């Protein structure tokens, strides 16, 4: 139901379990995902992903209708989905500033 998605978020494919921020969303706001208001744990940068529903450990992350990796832990609906809770099924991701990326993706 794309109509019940926050206009600041983008659902790229009906089968996806993540949605993408189309603009920066400040800390403390709530976002609407599939008709449910969810509090945002931290500010979200443009292009970053949130879980559209609860995702089990080991479950595939689906974006563009395609698998883009696997969850390394349980990811609750509305949580930031990124390098701290997802791994590639091909080659490991090289990244810096782990802690920052894990919490928000917003440069301090």
């Amino acid at each position, binding site marked *: 139901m794309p109509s019940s998605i926050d206009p600041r978020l983008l659902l790229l494919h009906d089968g996806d379990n993540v949605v993408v921020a*189309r603009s920066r969303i400040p800390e403390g706001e709530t976002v609407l995902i599939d008709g449910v208001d969810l509090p945002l744990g931290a500010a979200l940068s443009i*292009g970053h992903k949130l879980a559209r529903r609860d995702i089990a450990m080991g479950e595939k992350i689906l974006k*563009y209708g395609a698998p883009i990796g696997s969850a390394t832990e349980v990811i609750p609906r509305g949580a930031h989905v990124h390098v701290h809770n*997802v791994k*590639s099924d091909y*080659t490991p991701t090289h990244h810096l500033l782990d802690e920052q*990326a894990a919490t928000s993706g917003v440069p301090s």
Partner: protein
Amino acid sequence: MIEMRGYLRSDGRKGIRNVVAVGYLVECAHHVAREIAIPFREDGVHVIGFPGCYPNEYGGRMMEQLCTHPNVGAVLLVSLGCESFNKYALERAVRASGRPVKTIVIQASGGTRKSIEEGRAFIAEQRAILDAAPTVPMDPSELVIGTVCGGSDGTSGISGNPAAGRAFDLFVEEGAACIFEETGELIGCEHIMADRAATPELGVELEASVAKAARYYATLGYGSFAAGNADGGLTTIEEKSMGAYAKSGTSPISGLIKPGDVPPRGGLYLLDVVPDGEVRFGFPNINDNAEIVELIACGSHVVLFVTGRGSVVGSAISPVVKICANPETYRRMEDDMDVDAGRILEGRAGLAEVGQEIHDLVLSLGAGGRTKSEELGHQEFVLTYKSFEPIGPACLPAA
């Protein structure tokens, strides 16, 4: 209607620029080459070169394809003298293409100062001739266009890359040759890509090229993924791949080529930049410019460069059009960006509209227009060691 005009070359191809290429044949000749070009930096004189002293077939072929690129009108080669590069073969190939060419051997000319004087005199003479050269009408079907993405983030695959893909669809329809690349950034997309191949045999080759890339990068220990990609919201190589793949548009895939192979006719081509055989010389794409140079060596008149984080690069020989996927980045770096594709994310434009804008902008480059990176004087260039086997018969099925 935008009327393009080009410089007609002896092989029938047309160039949208009439550049003098100054090519150093080993790093030891780089300074002299750069000094020769400095007074002409606003006048279409571009420095390219191969830095290594050991022989390399790929390096020699790349230099030949670049020196005989349709955007090049004359060539000055700068050799130290004792390097392994076959300057005679390169000079012969350039001369056979009908272009004026001169080789300066620094050890024979008497050193730095004399070589610089000799080189500048040649360029001044050639520049005057090239500036008076006639042009002929040029059709979009005569264009070769490459695309690459760099400094990608979570917006690249949503706005910039699909918009570049729309532009590719328009050009393929008009009969142009369009090249997308970096099989290391198509990891995870190999099966859906193979379904678009013109023949099943080509589909097998496309899948094999991505499998080769996955093996190659696994050996090196890093995927084609920079730390900034993660900051920008990209989590895995397969996520980056899905976004990068969107640059290819929706046309059927006509062929698989390797660096230096010029597409034989219009259509959509995948450029395989990952070396063949065992891992010998390191990363297939040490940076974005390595890929841009390979696209240009395949005859690209223009390269479309999609960025989210914000790249500033241009290139020697062919103009680079920078398409900014991220609206925040565009506002911060507008002076470097040719297209604001982030409008799509903010609901200020549709994909089709931005795709058409990219298409028209490319045509305008053939009608006297210049890119932001050209205005700013960007002429990045890098070329390193690689080794390839020639493509097999299944890679270019007959039309």
